[in-house]
């Protein structure tokens, strides 16, 4: 017999130990479901696309071609990059896209799962976990492109490349933090999903993806305040030169990300019943 479940109007925050215990329990319980949902989403995603998995390669390649042509035509100037420019753009774009996937994924997934959320009481964490798995899967495909790229441009690789996944995971977690924060509100108000693309476009502009980290001026200040920058730059540096330039801000952002993720997770759990009650009848 499963344990007795009690539903009351009281806030779960008044029973923090119970809350943390149920969070842990649901996280464990949602593993298999998350796997199923991930398999379902990935197979559906590629089944109705003629180009299939190629869709994971096309955006970074298009981006790199475009910016390399523009740079060669001296439309804009960027400082020296420590690896060849096309490789620099393509690698950064792949990382940036992974961040964007992690940030927009939970919002879209929760909106799509609305009918399911309104009818079945399954661990809501499964939706987020499934999306994380999908982000990982898509990055894995991009990795093939990156490896090919590194070989083609003979990019030097340092031994620190084995540490790069750690930084990458922090980058994905930061994206997930943004995603979980926005997901409940995104179900209630369409404004969130409508503005998300715009915000991400602007955010890309503030992130050293097509240019190396600026050090001067107001723009340099803005970029320095962008939490994505140290994570993305550190991931790239670990994978290539091995010379780290933003160690302190990397650890500050990572620490805040982990703490923030736990808090937004609590918020997500508390918010979801209210969201479900408002979206359907």
């Amino acid at each position, binding site marked *: *017999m*499963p*344990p*007795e*479940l*009690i*539903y*009351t*109007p*009281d*806030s*779960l*925050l*008044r029973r923090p130990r119970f809350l943390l215990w149920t969070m842990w329990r649901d996280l464990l319980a949602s593993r*298999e*479901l998350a796997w*199923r*949902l991930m*398999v*379902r989403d990935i*197979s*559906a995603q590629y*089944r*109705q696309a003629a180009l299939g998995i190629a869709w994971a390669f096309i955006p970074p390649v298009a981006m790199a071609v475009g910016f390399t042509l523009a740079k060669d035509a001296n439309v804009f100037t960027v400082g020296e990059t420590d690896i060849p420019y096309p490789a620099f753009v393509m690698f950064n774009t792949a990382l940036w896209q992974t961040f964007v996937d992690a940030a927009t994924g939970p919002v879209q997934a929760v909106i799509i*799962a609305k*009918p*399911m*959320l*309104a*009818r*079945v*009481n*399954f661990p809501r964490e499964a939706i987020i976990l499934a999306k994380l798995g999908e982000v990982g899967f898509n990055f894995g495909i991009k990795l093939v492109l990156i490896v090919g790229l590194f070989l083609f441009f003979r990019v030097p690789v340092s031994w620190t490349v084995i540490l790069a996944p750690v930084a990458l995971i922090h980058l994905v977690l930061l994206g997930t933090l943004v995603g979980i924060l926005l997901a*409940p*509100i995104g179900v*209630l*108000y369409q404004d969130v999903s409508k503005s998300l693309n715009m915000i991400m476009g602007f955010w890309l502009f503030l992130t050293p993806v097509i240019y190396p980290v600026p050090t001067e001026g107001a723009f340099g200040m803005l970029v320095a305040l962008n939490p994505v920058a140290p994570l993305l730059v550190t991931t790239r540096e670990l994978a290539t030169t091995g010379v780290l330039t933003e160690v302190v801000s990397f650890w500050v952002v990572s620490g805040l990300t982990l703490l923030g993720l736990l808090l937004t997770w609590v*918020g997500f759990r*508390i*918010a979801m*019943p*209210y*969201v*479900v*009650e*408002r979206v359907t*009848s």
Partner: protein
Amino acid sequence: MTIRLSTESLTESFMATPESDSQPVISVEGVSKKFCRDLRRSLFYGVKDIAADLTGGRPHSDRLRPQEFWALKDISFQLHRGQAVGLVGSNGAGKSTLLRIISGLIKPDTGRVRVRGRLAPLIALGAGFNPILTGRENIYANMSILGLTTQQIKQRFAEVVEFAEIEEAIDAPVQTYSSGMAARLGFACAIYTEPNILLVDEVLAVGDARFKAKCYRRLYELRQRGVAFILVNHNSQAILNICDQAIYLTRGALVAQGEVNAVVDQYERDLFLNSIERSENRMVFPPKAAEESNGIDFRDLFFRDGDGQPTQTLLTGEPLSLCAVCEAHDSYSGVALDIRIAKVGGIESAGYVLSLRGQNDDAFFQLSPGLSEIRLQMPYLGLAPGVYSAQIRLRKDAVYTFDLVESFRFTVTSQQNVNKCQFYQPRSWSMVPVVPVSAGQLLP
């Protein structure tokens, strides 16, 4: 407390012990829920509630804010193992909201709900079906959403496919399925999660009559095994068949609860607004004003015996007439009665026993203003003893319905032994001697 817990875990397989039987599987204690009809304001309240909850709780969740109303108010009831409760009430009475609170999808605004046991919502047919994926893939996804492990799904997979009757289409995308096939697959997935408590919300409206009957049979089997039910259905027939208890909700308030027949009676009385008089095998309706009427109204439904005398005793095998006294407000031609009779209770109760339609028998009548009595004469009453429910319509030309009685219930008894018979067969026995015939001669 600790002792009880440890004994419980030791005797997990002895769930049928009287001790655990006395514990309700669902206990709803003073539950209320408020909703808001204005979408913008409703969303805003949602955000406010989230903010309040995140800062430690909503202090006045028991008070209405502007434009809110109580979708449920102070509902309390208990459900025990093996019990089946029907929820009746008109649209918007709060039935689905109550089910959603019980399944933990939304929080109550006051009161609390306790659930012991694995709960499966049959509100969720085909939740998470992806049209591009095959039936096989969707079974796995759907059943994991309903809380099964991959191992458990593998074990039940064959049964699910067999129940849904989609063997040949299992590897085709679900978007190629007919709506009936998809609905069958959804029902099969949900029913094979093997719950202790089943919440059924209007789902049996899908599929053809044969599959519906199969679903009812399966529900009946589950009940025999001790599964507790909460059933929502507009068709009081289904409630009478499956449930032993009923709860009647009107605009979020609990009007009546208790024995199913009494509650359903009350619901039907209120449904047809006016004070219908129900006595044994008879229904009397008050007159309707001309502007409320659709032309002709039922005033009295009753039976007459072989001598044409009104009777309240219906005997299997005896002559009987079903009589409908109708009041016409104008002259009408082409009026016919349409009668469908279903048996109440038992495993074979899905579907109609009899469907007698005047328009099929060319029994059209000409009614002039005032009262007339239409009689359906049966030389022998073929129905076996039991309780029946008749749906009776007064129609014109097979399209227009003047008046409708959703459920006219009557009881048939018998003086002779018709046990083991599905219906009464009028008969006589005789014996005739056979004259031997020689070979080559033609038989008569």
